């Protein structure tokens, strides 16, 4: 871009402040129409002026191209489609570079430093091609906001084929021109030229390839994650919502469904590396509480402090706690049950509490083995103890203790 700017300054054109191309009114690209509009003369006069300048050493064409590059199109007069704009932008850059090189060469010839036709021609071609190739690199990074990436890519591919073609043509011409001179120095220069040309052509392409591969990969990972989340939500939340709609008449069932779904989602969201039910006391207690909750539809609030590896004694504690929760859920008629477990360095305690009906422990019939057998006796067998505090009308708390020391 700086090349173009300096070209604009060097060519002592009338100030282009406020000058706009008018593509809608122009014959070619609206350059003449724009100049005419801003100068207040007939466009035809401007066009004739350009034709005359062209007759004088082709100068008019160079000026026209420069003007095309440096004057923005009037936005109000139907901007070209986005796909076109990217390609046209690239072509403009290429033409600008070529025109710039051409201008320099004209100046050089005037002062008598003409490098010779066989260099001048390829140089112009090569500069145009390079402009096409390299222009893509910054555009790929920044990109005009609002310009859709896919459309831009289409334009880029068009220019991308043209660019290397131009450079290839330049290199071939140059090599062909030098081929007439059988000289080893020239052969060396030819090889260097070829190498530099290849680097210039494929360098940005390689860069872009690497970058787009990284982009592609990040995009694919995001897509995969999204798909996973969608699949999970579909299997769980959407299914449950459908079930809830079907059973809308049964509040107890609806609440149980909602509660189960909530728990599942919570696990998934907050405990991605959930502890193993087989080896962790906290996980085993939580699982037991969930099962009871599901079975009997009474919410159980589980709070655990610390954790311990599950062994025979603690396994017994989990089973006893499960039985206590089951009793509370079935018989107490409480709104919710609390389970609290704490693992200290030398003992593990668990409390199952409800604020329900309560009962007289002595009044429990001898054949009802739940409390005596499954809680008290089980804990004793494993070297622990169970204490049951129950007050009729005020609720029950079962205390389970295992000494670790």
């Amino acid at each position: 871009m700086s090349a173009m700017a300096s070209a604009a300054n060097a060519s002592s054109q009338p100030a282009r402040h406020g000058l706009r191309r008018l593509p809608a009114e122009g014959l070619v690209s609206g350059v003449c129409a724009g100049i005419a509009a801003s100068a207040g003369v007939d466009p035809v006069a401007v066009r004739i002026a350009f034709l005359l300048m062209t007759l004088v050493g082709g100068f008019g064409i160079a000026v026209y191209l420069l003007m095309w590059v440096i004057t923005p199109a009037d936005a109000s007069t139907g901007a070209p489609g986005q796909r076109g704009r990217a390609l046209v932008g690239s072509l403009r850059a290429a033409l600008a570079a070529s025109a710039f090189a051409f201008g320099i060469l004209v100046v050089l010839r005037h002062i008598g430093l003409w490098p010779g036709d066989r260099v001048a021609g390829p140089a112009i071609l090569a500069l145009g091609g390079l402009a096409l190739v390299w222009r893509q690199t910054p555009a790929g990074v920044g990109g005009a906001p609002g310009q859709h990436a896919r459309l831009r890519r289409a334009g880029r591919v068009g220019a991308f084929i043209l660019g290397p073609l131009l450079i290839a043509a330049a290199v071939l011409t140059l090599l062909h021109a030098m081929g007439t001179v059988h000289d080893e120095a020239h052969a060396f220069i030819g090889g260097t030229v070829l190498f530099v040309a290849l680097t210039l052509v494929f360098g940005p392409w390689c860069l872009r390839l690497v970058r787009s591969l990284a982009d592609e990969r990040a995009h694919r990972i995001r897509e995969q994650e999204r798909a996973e989340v969608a699949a999970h939500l579909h299997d769980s939340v959407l299914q449950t919502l459908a079930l809830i709609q079907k059973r809308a008449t049964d509040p107890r069932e609806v609440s149980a469904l909602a509660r189960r779904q909530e728990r599942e989602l919570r696990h998934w969201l907050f405990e991605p590396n959930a502890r193993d039910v087989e080896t962790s006391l906290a996980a085993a207690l939580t699982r037991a509480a969930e099962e009871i909750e599901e079975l009997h539809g009474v919410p159980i609030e589980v709070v655990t402090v610390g954790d311990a590896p599950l062994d025979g004694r603690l396994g017994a504690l989990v089973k006893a706690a499960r039985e206590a929760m089951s009793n509370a859920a079935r018989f107490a008629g409480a709104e919710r049950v609390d389970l609290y477990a704490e693992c200290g360095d030398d003992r593990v305690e668990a409390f199952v509490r409800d604020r329900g009906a309560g009962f007289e422990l002595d009044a429990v019939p001898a054949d009802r083995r739940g409390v005596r057998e499954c809680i008290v006796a089980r804990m004793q067998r494993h070297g622990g103890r169970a204490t049951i505090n129950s007050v009729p009308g005020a609720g029950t708390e079962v205390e389970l203790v295992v000494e670790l020391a």
Partner: protein
Amino acid sequence: MTDAPARAVRVAIVDDHDLFRAGVRAEVGAELEVIGDAGSVDEAVTLIAAQRPDVVLLDVHMPEGGGVEVIRRSFDATRDDPGREVPRFLALSVSDSPDDVIAVIRAGARGYVTKTISGDELCDAVRRVADGDAVFSPRLAGFVLDAFAGDAPPAQDDGLDQLTAREREVLRHIARGYLYKEIALRLGISVKTVEAHVSSVLRKLQLSTRHELSAWAIERRLVNW
């Protein structure tokens, strides 16, 4: 509440879910004076500055910083205007993550309850916070016990890094699902004393030099094996 309150507690509800705000409003509206609700951090800060509620029911998870940000900006606003009183914040969230909960408490919330709490319990918690007490749900009590468990790092003279045996006992009862008055009965102390213990725990939680309290607790869970 034994003595009839002179006036209803003025409450603001901050949550980015419209449905949830409407639900809470319906649940507590009869007993508390809901003076407004806000769906974002900015709205909340403006609402609090304009209406000066007694208690703000605050969602932990919201875009642009969540509850922690609301608390921070409300305190900042008061610093410029010393005559103004900051409302008390009660965190209300579905989050079960200790990090979130401890963060909002350390920012200055007076308590934390889960969104599954019943309407009556919520009203009670709001009144308690309005009176200057701290409100701990069983889950929060569990988090705090976890965070303060084990050996304290280099002991401090102010004792902020340790819970007393009594505080620990009170927290354990809260975690077991006991109400304050039940705890008072069991431990043979007054309800006011229970409240004092809980407030003291809250203060330690907010001021303790145990940085990254919850992260430390999680680590401990693994180390303890």
